[in-house]
């Protein structure tokens, strides 16, 4: 039977499938990894592959070609770290002077670098933009994009990761983005010199989608020409969670009591399908799996619940109280959730309920950074800069 043979083939292909996580929110930029065959349960102690101290901040980890990179702050400097992804051996690091920026929190780095090819790109809170040779750490080019464009720096700085789009780097800098040549850093287009939002530009065809202080908007990645903007006014201009795209639908959401909305694209401007107060993602975006959204509803000042909502209708399926401002990813149909106080839970991603099969305390608070799964290793980082890499490989390679 052709069908069962196809299923068998799919199963074989799926077994122990491993993947890099080269940029923010993973290979498909939605918090979902195709990786299968990793251990979701283990007897006894947490299987730690390696640990490192990377400094203050919430920058996520990116993994490509055997390298893992992240950023942290200490003693008036930000440091970009590049490790051997499997062993934790420090391959290189690069420091530059930076402000702590401790406005209403303890400060430190907030954005995430981006791997592409043999390059690592990094945009700091204060507009320092770097292109590194990923192997050596040599600075290929660097500049301060805020100074160059005149863009003002929002209260918590630039936090969106650079998006590689063809020959360009698209940045959430200015009112409606900025782009430079990825090879040279040369400015290609820019927008009004205002505060930016905090989300990472998300590619959708020729467009890049992101939040600014008053809207979610889409611009042509090559030219910067604006396709549409959807007014989305959030306290302090904090539109931080990346949009979530499925077909012609886009889900957007912000915290500070704002809520979420499902938009339908296709017309001149997006059309609102539904709106909810039940999923207010202040920091990390939710993750879409099998028609359901999984994400944190509420702010860092609350012990926000982890929730599941029906993507089509916005109906709430379940709410797990006390999760806090952590983050979730999904791999092989399982939620990998790191709570705001650093507890890791693994549970089937299902609308029927949150039923963890594994619970492990990885480290202490604050854990506002979503975990990252790459090649069987799970990278967890807290604000104090403890980077703990769990070995979830079924067997040692």
């Amino acid at each position, binding site marked *: 039977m052709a069908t069962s043979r196809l299923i068998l083939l799919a199963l074989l292909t799926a077994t122990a499938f491993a993947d890099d996580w080269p940029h923010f929110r993973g290979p498909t930029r939605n918090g979902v990894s195709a990786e299968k065959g990793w251990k979701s349960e283990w007897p006894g102690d947490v299987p730690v592959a390696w640990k490192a101290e990377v400094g203050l901040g919430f920058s996520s980890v990116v993994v490509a070609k055997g390298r893992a990179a992240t950023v942290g702050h200490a003693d008036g400097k930000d440091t970009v770290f590049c490790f051997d992804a499997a062993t934790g051996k420090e391959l290189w690091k690069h420091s530059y002077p930076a*402000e702590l920026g401790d406005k209403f929190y303890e400060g430190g780095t907030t954005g995430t670098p981006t791997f592409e090819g043999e390059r690592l790109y990094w945009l700091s809170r204060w507009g320092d933009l770097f292109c590194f040779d990923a192997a050596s750490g040599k600075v290929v080019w660097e500049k301060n994009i805020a100074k160059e464009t005149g863009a*003002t*720096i929002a209260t918590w700085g630039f936090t969106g990761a650079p998006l590689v789009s063809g020959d360009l780097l698209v940045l959430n800098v200015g009112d409606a983005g900025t782009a430079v040549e990825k090879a040279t850093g040369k400015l290609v287009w820019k927008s009004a010199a*205002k505060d930016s939002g905090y989300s990472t530009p998300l590619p959708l065809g020729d467009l890049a989608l992101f939040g600014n202080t008053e809207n979610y908007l889409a611009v042509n990645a090559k030219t910067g020409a604006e396709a549409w903007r959807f007014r989305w*006014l959030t306290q302090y201009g904090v539109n931080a969670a990346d949009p979530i795209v499925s077909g012609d639908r886009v889900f957007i959401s912000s915290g500070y*009591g704002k809520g979420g909305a499902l938009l339908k694209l296709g017309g001149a401007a997006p059309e609102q399908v539904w709106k909810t107060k039940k999923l207010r993602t202040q920091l990390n975006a939710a993750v879409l799996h099998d028609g359901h959204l999984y994400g944190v509803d509420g702010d860092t*000042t609350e012990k926000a619940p982890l929730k599941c909502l029906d993507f089509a209708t916005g109906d709430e399926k379940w709410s797990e109280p006390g999760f806090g401002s952590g983050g979730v990813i999904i791999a092989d149909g399982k939620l990998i959730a790191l709570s705001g106080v650093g507890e890791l839970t693994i549970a089937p991603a299902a609308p029927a309920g949150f039923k963890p099969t594994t619970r492990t305390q990885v480290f202490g608070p604050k854990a506002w950074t979503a975990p990252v799964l790459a090649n069987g290793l799970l990278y967890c980082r807290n604000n104090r800069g403890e980077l703990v890499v769990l070995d979830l490989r079924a067997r040692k390679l």
Partner: protein
Amino acid sequence: MNRRHFIRTATLAGAAPFIRAAEPRKLRTALIGSGWWGKNILKEAMTSGRCAVVALADVDVNIAEIAGEQVNDISGETPKLYRDYRELLAKEKPDIVIIATPDHWHALNTIDALKAGAHVFVEKPTGHTVNESRAMLKAARESGRVVQVGLHRRIGPHHVSGMKFLKSGAVGEVGMVRLFAHSAGGGPEKPTPNEPAPDSMDWNSWCGPAPLRPFSKKLHPGGWRNTLDFANGTLGDWGVHWLDQVLWWSGEQYPKRVFCTGGRPVLGAPVLNDKEQTSDAPDHQVATYEFEKFTCVWEHRRFGGNDSEKHKIGSYYYGTKGVLHIGWRDGWTFYPSTKGGKMEHADAQLVEPDGHNIALLWADFLAAIDQRRAPVASIELAHRSSVLPLLGMISWRTGRSLAWDAASETIVGDAEASALLARPYRGPWVYPAV
């Protein structure tokens, strides 16, 4: 039917529809200054179930819009939004006005709201300068309206029980009080760039009667507390709460002398030029208030706050039987100094995440309106409590101690210091008459 029966029947018959119609009319409530704290107060107004939110004002139309959406989420109401509070007062004729603007706007907002016939809930401290506060008090008296000031520690449960404990004599004779607020922090302060204000914001009106200075994210949101054109630093912001407690406890009207010293050795000299600016409030201050029966010391540091001291915020009442600490999230604790004395403690009961008791203060405000009585943090009391940090700031500016005449509310024999009881307003705004 005898006459008595007739009267009873008639009364009941007449009363029934009246009772149905007399579900108390909701009080038309408006908010001036629609940011973080203003919305905290407004939420309590809405929770009380007796207030209809009719209008919100903010010089930033986006902030008003966000607040309006949040009101709509909670109650389904759609308050009208205003950029100019005077237009709000004229068009909406509110019964209650909540004022949660920066300090430099409190006086004009309050006086105009009272003139428009509203009861007022205004944030602490009352005025930015002493004579503004006096003018607010005068306007309140003339209006006959209720003015509650946001000194929620006057009604917070652990403050009430701590005060009861203190007044019971359990602490003995109290000869000295120390008030303090310490936080951790580093220096020096790096200047923040000046930049255009957001398009949605009328920056000229935000500055209002204060000097117009360039917009910077250092000032807004929130940072104005440490810029002296708009507020009075930690002494004005935090000190007023704890100094108010001292007046509450002691029953004294005013101190006789005030001396304050402090500076910015950690944060460094203030910067204000066409490119950038820093805050300019002191990073630490020590103020001594000499009362008739005791001495009160205020201390704050915006650096070096850690667990080397048992409590970081609050008040120590030093008595012959022991020391009472009344704090914030740590409630109150009595440390006995007599043999066999028992340590006592009460936990705080606060509304989180911001740790306040606005709900109780709001309930008291409504009760005061109903009963035509003075509220618990009335402007009569809060005026004097607000004058204390303001006098501390004048002593700090002039670098010498001040003799205060309580009866005339004037500084004795010091023309330079007396001049700082008021300040010039930027036109067209006019300093309110005392």
